[in-house]
């Protein structure tokens, strides 16, 4: 419900890709993982998550497969493609540079 604070679409893509780098998972699990890893700061709603997932699938950076989930029901699992891994590396590096630069200004004099 609470929108992730100042979370831009591009950053959401980065988060999703990073989460999926560890293992394939379905949409709900991705949202939960993001919440856990950010210590409850970032909460991604369905309305932001699924369009992002579909867009990433459209661009060929993740691929989808219907599998049986933990509770034995069908769910759509997403996994990183090879192209997706490359994009993840790029985006992560960019983010590091960007955030370092911003930190310099904000926490500097």
């Amino acid at each position, binding site marked *: 419900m609470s929108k992730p604070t100042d979370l831009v679409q591009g950053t959401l893509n980065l988060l999703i890709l990073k989460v999926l780098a560890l293992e394939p998972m379905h949409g709900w699990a991705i949202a939960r993982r993001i919440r856990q890893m950010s210590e409850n700061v970032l909460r991604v709603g369905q309305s932001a998550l699924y*369009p992002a997932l579909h867009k990433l699938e459209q661009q060929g950076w993740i691929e989808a497969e219907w599998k049986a989930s933990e509770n034995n029901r069908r769910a759509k699992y997403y996994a990183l493609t090879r192209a997706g891994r490359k994009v993840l590396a790029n985006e992560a590096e960019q983010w590091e540079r960007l955030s370092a630069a911003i930190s310099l200004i904000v926490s500097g004099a």
Partner: protein
Amino acid sequence: MRWLAKLRLRVRSLFLKTRVEQELDEELRYHLEREIEEGLAAGLPPDEARLAARRSVGAVDQSMEECRDMRGVTFVEHRVQDLRFAFRQLRKHPAFATTAIVMLALGLSANVAIFGFVDAALVRPLPYADATRLVTVFATRPDKVQAQTRGFISYQDFLDWRERNRAFRSIGAYDVRSGFILTTPEGPQSVPGLSVTAGFFRTLGVTPAVGREFERDEEGPTAPPTVMLSNATWQTRFGARPDVVGQTLTLQGEPHVVIGVLPRDFHFTMAEHAEFWTAIRGRQYCWEHRGCRSLEAVARLAEGVSAETAIANLASIVREVRSEHPDSHRDPETAKVVALRDVMLGDIRPVLLALLSGAGLLLLIACINMVSLLLARSDSRGREMGLRSALGASGMRLVSQFATEALVLVAIGSAFGLALAASGMRSLGSLLTPDMISRMPYLQGVGLDLRLMAFAGVIALLALLVLTLAPAARLSTSERLAGLREGSRGASGTTWRRFGAYLVMAEFGIALVLLVSAGLLGQSFHRLLQVDIGINAQHLVLVGVQPVPGEASEQPGVLARKVAERMASLPGVQAAGYADLVPLSGGLAPSSVFRRDGSPDEHLDDFPVRRVGAGYFAALQAKLLRGREFTEEEVASTRNVVIINDTTAQRYFRGEDPIGKAIVIGAPPAREIVGVVADLKDGPLETPVLPAAYVPFDQPGFGLVVRASGDERALFPSLARAIRDVQPGLLIQGPTSMTERIDRQPSASLHRSSAWLAGGFAAVAFVLSVVGLYGVVAYSVGQRNREIAVRMALGAQRRSVYQLVLGEAAWLVGMGTALGMICSLAAAYLMRRLLFGVQSWDAATLACAAAVLIVSALLASYIPARRAASVDPIEALRAE
């Protein structure tokens, strides 16, 4: 392989839409359930858990919509939706659809068909290498330089020009007198052909398909006889044999050796389907005497040389030659250089451009009508648009709907239009007489090709643009919402009604322009046919006779006299005569200088001279103004006598009686004038009459004119038989009747075709504009039903209703006609070169056209007026 996976995704989204939607639904539902489970696991009661889950999940429909957008196929989906809707709309309104499609098809086909000819004649380059560097060159008097576009030179002069010029990379010439006699196993045959100088084809930039062209040593008085074939002749007469070079054939009684074949796409306007090309060789009077001008020269400008430089260079050569040979040159002379393209296309350019403009105007009317129709329809769709907007359609989406509908109309209309154009071009092509084709060979075989399809595409695109923007422009936010209001009928109707009125005015203006143009062209054609050619053209037969060269022949002229006498003795023949070139024969008479004996040797002009036998003018029933015809004795002895035409008499002997006086034709001695004949039209119909002289006949070949007392066609077989009786083995051309010859004249055919086409355009434009007016008036009346009903309920008479409607219509028509008059005058002025015998401001034509238009318009608006006046006010008001 990423693109493959992506493609698969897109294809799946498009074609397995239901499954994909189901999956999305399932995915989102799963998410929701897990949220609920989590809530339950955290200890919330089921209802609260569900509520919390829903809240955290957000608006489902919107996320589904966004997911759909992400799939990237929305564009295609929307277009498909639009398309389906467009087709449904068209099916529901078949009248509108048919009208729109028909109008577009007509407008498009007219333009494409005419443009096909314009492209073939004016846009396509000539089939010569680098044709822009090609020019014709000739010498002329300084005071005639402006007006003259073609001129001849003599072979002797040509030789000097070729040797001394520095402005041309190469120069060639052809003799304007054409035709040879080919000896075939079946007997002698007259064939079309030309004689040219060596290097003529190289000058044009044409390479032979087989063999080579004439070398310098194959030209001249002692050169051996050689010949080149046209590609078509090589195919038909020689079966396209590869070893044709070296074969011999007999032309003019001499064996000629084939040295080459011309390429297939070669054509030369002045060549008239020439089959054989020989070099200027052997002995001929005209080629040995500097005063006889029978060649037309074609030259290729050297690199970097402009026309002005060439003219200067040639002018100095002309001056040199004149000082070396004062007897054969008028004074003073200068050179003129004309682009070859202008010479070849001069005649037809104004006609084609005029026709193209007419077709363009027709397309404009068609578009205006379609816009009116669409505007009228978009009124009734106000509600639909309002609803769509309220449901969330963006402006772009609505416009794309209009665009799709326009696309469907334009696509169907274009398909029909192209089909119509293809058959139109075929029928236009069949209108071309053989004479026209030989003068304008590039007009043959015009058909749909890539360029024309591209042109049609441009027109279709423009139509698409217009038809999309028209209803789209009507769309504004307030309008959209206003459309939803109950009972509203396009609230801001007045602005658009006025716009519709302006459209109709424009239509009428254009229709008037087309009507007037058609009227003027029709009159020109009529006048052309009535041109006084100075003879009685009825019941006249023309036959060309040629003895085979090389065969034993008597004194020239004796044969002609014998044949004429034989003709005159046949039953059904009133009189017979002969000459070297009969009227309208299409041949060019060699010209000589005219000088009144005793007058000074300056400012001399040359004019055509024809050689005629005794009784020639009587057979033609030309009017002899003074004096007499030649006697047989004078013709037999080729005495120094001459008959002049009236123009010559006026020019050289004004106010005196020329009979008995002397005039020098060509070279001295002077000839005695024995008769003055009224002007005969010897050349094309629209050219003015020149001075002309007629001297006693002295040629081997001749043209017969035979006056029949009844139907001339019945005489044809007996004439041919009688000629062969006099001397078997003579070559006979014809017989043809004079009236047929006049009809087939290229200028007559051109005027006739233009008049017909213009008439066709005018008729279609007329129908379209009257229908358009009817539509606008009927629609306006429909809009004002309520107003009229109230008026009538308040006591207005029917008459006042009529006044209301007809008054509005009359205002429209009046303004449109006035506008059209001005434009017609402008158009007629632009067309003035095409008109013959009728002024561009011809009041009768203007008045007639305007009257026709106004009367039909008033009739057309009478019907809706009547309907309005006969409405029952109570019913009308109740229905609101």
